[in-house]
């Protein structure tokens, strides 16, 4: 009797497995995909590049696979080479951790029969973006990148003999609205409220009592974490620099930004909150930014908070240990400076004073209960739209200031 039962169970299992493994593979026609209608185009010299990024549902409709669930995001790229020499596309420039097409197919082989997998592998292989584009010709295909939340920003390089063409794209993704999208930056300040200054003037301004030191809570009776960064950049330069340095966008309802969004400066929550995550841990650096009414030589100044947090939805987890990682707000500041520098976005950099120091053994507390310590420095970065080599960044607010802030002991 038991033997019959066992055989019965085995038969059911076999049938179930057989049903799974016989699933046919049925992708859609890439050339007819609707997301291609949102394509963006850029030209550099003789090279024309067109890109489009399918959202989650569109990716599923195209490939038959929920690739977003596997942290894989396809990008469609079309390159026309109007030069006289072979152009070589660099997949690496889009994402150094890109997945080759057949790997994506192989990762998803399980539910398919051998024949179905075979046609899936072929589809992925044939729709992949070729690397070599002969002179006068056009090639198009998909590149499989690691999923990034929010706007898909990426670089794309093409190199040929001792020449390189560099492109940067920002592609909005359906279903994700970054917080800054709803801010009408142009009407935040009437023209009479705008204050114009120069590089030296900004230091005076930031160190004067005119400059806010902290945001407050909504009632105005509690202080938030200090405004320990000032960024000078137009909106395009800021956005490109954030992309180059791999800062991620957030949405208004992102629970991990809850406390940041409770803070008010010039009667409003941050205009945008961005973060950097550790690849091998759950720590993250958060940067909340407000557009200020100040302008340095016509470029807007942003005031912001750099803080350290733990990438944990259980917000309370971040505060169980008030003297832990999150209390350190100077290290995220150092990290941010280097991130902008290494990602070739830093035109100029300096430190000014303007925040009351709080030593490690006498930390200060915010209205939401977080303790922090700081040496009282404010980081000032001037960001560039075009890449700046590390050696071309300038140090402003020179060493006299450094001595003044640190008492000459630095």
């Amino acid at each position, binding site marked *: 009797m038991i033997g019959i039962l066992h055989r019965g169970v085995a038969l059911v299992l076999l049938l179930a497995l057989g049903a799974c493994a016989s699933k046919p593979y049925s992708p859609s026609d890439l050339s007819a995909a609707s997301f291609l209608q949102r394509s963006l185009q850029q030209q550099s010299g003789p090279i024309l590049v067109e890109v489009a990024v399918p959202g989650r549902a569109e990716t599923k409709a195209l490939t038959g696979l929920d690739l977003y669930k596997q942290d894989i995001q396809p990008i469609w790229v079309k390159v026309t080479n109007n030069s006289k020499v072979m152009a070589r596309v660099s997949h690496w420039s889009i994402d150094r951790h890109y997945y080759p097409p057949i790997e994506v197919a192989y990762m998803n082989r399980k539910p398919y029969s051998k024949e179905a997998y075979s046609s899936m592998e072929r589809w992925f292989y044939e729709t992949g973006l070729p690397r070599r584009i002969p002179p006068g010709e056009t090639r198009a295909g998909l590149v499989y990148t690691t999923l990034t939340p929010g706007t898909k920003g990426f670089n794309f390089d093409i190199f040929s003999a001792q*020449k390189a063409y560099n492109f940067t794209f920002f592609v909005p993704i359906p279903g994700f609205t970054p917080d800054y999208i709803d801010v009408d930056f142009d009407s935040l300040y009437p023209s009479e409220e705008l204050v114009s200054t120069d590089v030296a003037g900004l230091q005076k301004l930031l160190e004067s009592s005119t400059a806010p030191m902290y945001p407050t809570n909504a009632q105005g009776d509690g202080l938030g974490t200090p405004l320990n960064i000032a960024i000078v950049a137009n909106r395009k330069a800021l956005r490109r620099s954030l992309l180059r340095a791999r800062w991620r966008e957030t949405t208004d309802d992102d629970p991990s930004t809850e406390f940041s969004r409770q803070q008010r400066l010039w009667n409003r929550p941050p205009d945008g909150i961005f973060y950097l995550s550790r690849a091998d841990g759950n720590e993250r650096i958060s940067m909340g930014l407000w557009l200020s009414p100040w302008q340095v030589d016509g470029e807007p100044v942003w005031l912001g908070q750099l803080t350290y947090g733990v990438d944990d939805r259980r917000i309370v987890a971040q505060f169980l240990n008030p003297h832990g990682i999150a209390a350190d707000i100077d290290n995220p500041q150092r990290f941010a400076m280097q991130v902008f520098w290494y990602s070739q976005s830093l035109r100029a950099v300096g430190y000014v004073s303007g925040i009351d120091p709080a030593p490690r053994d006498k930390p200060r507390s915010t209205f939401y209960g977080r303790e922090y310590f700081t040496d009282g420095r404010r980081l000032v970065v001037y960001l560039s739209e075009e890449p700046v080599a590390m050696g071309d960044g300038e140090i402003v607010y020179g060493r006299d200031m450094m001595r003044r802030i640190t008492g000459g002991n630095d």
Partner: protein
Amino acid sequence: MAMTNLRAMPLALCIFALLAFLQATPAATAETGRGERELFKGQSVPPPNDRLHTNSERDLTITTAVPSAEETKTIFGKNLYIRNIQPVWVQVENKGDESLFLTPMGLDPAYYTAREVAQRARSNDSEAPANASYEQRGLDRLHVAPRSVVSGYVFSRVDEGTKSFNIDVVGNGKPYMISFFVPVPGLKIDHYRVEISKLYGPEDIREVGMAELVEELEKLPCCVRDKAGKDKGDPLNLVFIGSVRDMYYAFMRAGWDETETIYGASLLKTAASALMGDAYRYSPVSSLYVFDRSQDAAMQRARTSIHERNHLRVWITPLLHEGKPVWIGQISRDIGVHFTWRTITTHKIDPDVDETREFLLEDLAYAQMVSKFGYVGGVGPAGYDAPRGNLTGDPYFTDGQRIVIWVASEPTSIKEIEVLDLSPFQTGAIGN
């Protein structure tokens, strides 16, 4: 002519250069005598001072030391290596009049702050993090004022074998970017000498010009073999031209890890026991054979999971081109695990081996380590619908080309890379 060049640049010299380079530098030896009392006055915890490495450039002198897992335990009282944390002691001396910034991100783009280390080093969740202990020893200042010295530990991620890192110091004008290659104690490196220097005698080695180079490369075996030399495996689709040192720099800069096969199997045990937490980055690669011997060096680059990794094996040939050794190699990209009769389990490789080959070119190019590249034949094409099989039965298809990469001795931007058309030299030969 060939013999003259041979005498001018024997292979052994290249190997000696690497060995000399892997040893403590003369400057380091000089510093050693000064001892901790003078050099580290005021430092509560000195580094292992017998292995200091010093480099000077213009107004800057940088000294570094990397404590081993055991030494780290002595200094910090915790086994940090097991948490993937490797402290690197750094001292920056600014003799100039300009303010400079040390940027530890050059050492490791994901270095840990003192408090992150404290948090990770705890034995259990209820243990309070020893923040002060790490903050005191950690390098907490980026600013290096004129005529001042800054020193302390930077907490990086673990590298075994050789710790390769850059110390970058930026200010107004040209940044200082100084590379250090520091052997981490506990791992023996002498195997290197034994393994490679015995391969060829002076009579085997010869210098070849471009035409002869292409001809010789196309005659080299198409594929790797098994130990018996019988069955053919993965295609040998890589050629490098570069000194041992250039090769080493290039792969380190591009983020590749050594594997134990560089040094021979005895090292495997050392590496595996020293690592534990991060063992898979250095896990062994199987031996494949060319010239009747297993690979002279193997490198790997871990990706997102243990099943996804790029493997690369190289063999040094008896050829020299423009005085530099010529290497032949094989690369494969693991895309999963499958079962075989021979080895029980093995990694499934991406059958599109040309894709993997081109990835490597890009990987080295973005590390600024490629000066020129071109293609030769020798592998023989195999189409998508008529693939060949490797030793574990995985199919692969290829255009049959070998990429020839001239490894740069100086950082070379992608705009400066020369693309060589080697087709006029191609012979159409396919290696056996």
